[in-house]
């Protein structure tokens, strides 16, 4: 699994599209938002109403870092699949693992 860098921002500094790094709970421990959730304006507004002050967010990966990570992944997969052949099953499995590992933090 890729290691994710995180940063903590005051709610007012958070832009729509930011991704929550850890789940957000209220004082009683009830989960308000799951980790990996993408924040939009409506969610941010609700958090303001609830008095949430700061959020721990995923630091977006730079394009260069992402490119390097994808190239390394591609290389590793080609090595892992070296005897798996070119049948449909092998091709589909490789496609799915690539998608799973490069899908970033998008929620399903």
């Amino acid at each position, binding site marked *: *699994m890729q290691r994710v860098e995180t940063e903590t921002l005051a709610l007012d500094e958070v832009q729509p599209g930011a991704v929550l790094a850890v*789940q957000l709970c209220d004082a009683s*421990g009830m*989960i308000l938002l*799951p*980790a990996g959730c993408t924040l939009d304006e409506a969610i941010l507004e609700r958090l303001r109403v609830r008095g949430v002050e700061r959020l721990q967010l995923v630091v977006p990966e730079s394009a260069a870092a992402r490119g390097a990570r994808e190239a390394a992944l591609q290389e*590793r*997969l080609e090595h*892992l*699949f*070296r*005897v*798996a*052949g070119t*049948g*449909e*099953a*092998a091709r*589909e*499995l*490789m*496609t*799915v*693992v690539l*998608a*799973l590992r490069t899908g970033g933090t998008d929620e*399903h």
Partner: protein
Amino acid sequence: MSTESIFPLELDAVMEAVARLPPFPEVALQLLQSLDGADADSEQLERLIATDQILTARLLRVANSSFYGMQGRIHSIRDALVLIGYRGLRSLAIAASLSSALPGEGGQPGGFWRQGLAAGVVAQVLGRAAHLNPDVCFAAGLMHGLGRLLLARAFPAQCAVVEDWRREHDCMQHEAERAVLGLDHLEVGQLLAERWRFPAALVSAIGGHQDPVRIAQDPYAALVHVADAVVIALDVVPERDAMVPCIDEGAWRRFVASPEVLLHLLHDIDEQIESAAGLLQAP
């Protein structure tokens, strides 16, 4: 048995080694044999788990992992039963009990049960979607490499030769075993499973998941064949020369309707595997 093996291992010697293994953990055996039945007696499961402090501690750690969203709030096996359900908890109890009774050794220190747990989780996800018994699916994935554990434990010298042969020829583990020993860990695993009177579906999955004939006939052998390939592709235990086997197309299509469906089924697989792997840490 091949007469051209480099370092042949007789089945009799394997059977003797099986007899010298520590007894199969009673808790795991009782739970395994209950997989086939419909009886879900939560109180009995609770009592059985309570006889083992280490097992209890490991299960509570998994129940408190972030995957279930109840961090720090599950204090008893009864709470965990409510959260995870009878069947899920029974599967985890089998895994925890087995992995502490037969710790991974040899070629895959620490990695053996992690790989097994991952295969169990993947097999369960795929098998459930195909209407197989999810508990049997999990157990089948979990134990598919059982024969490797016995070989590594009882025949370290032979296994070192197998390892050299595998490196040199860059081939699958069971191919190297066949060439060197004249038998492979699937066969050995099947012997173990039979001796311990595992349910038939498990015996077949452990012994048959690389055999095209059995894969075509037995859904659990086919499932473990596919789950094994998926787990290697996911690089759960990143060994440098790990290799995805040539995948049986029929087995694949039986469990994978399309890449989109597989992507959907696996979307939280890393979290599921991490959560289950909590079982493997010392309490």
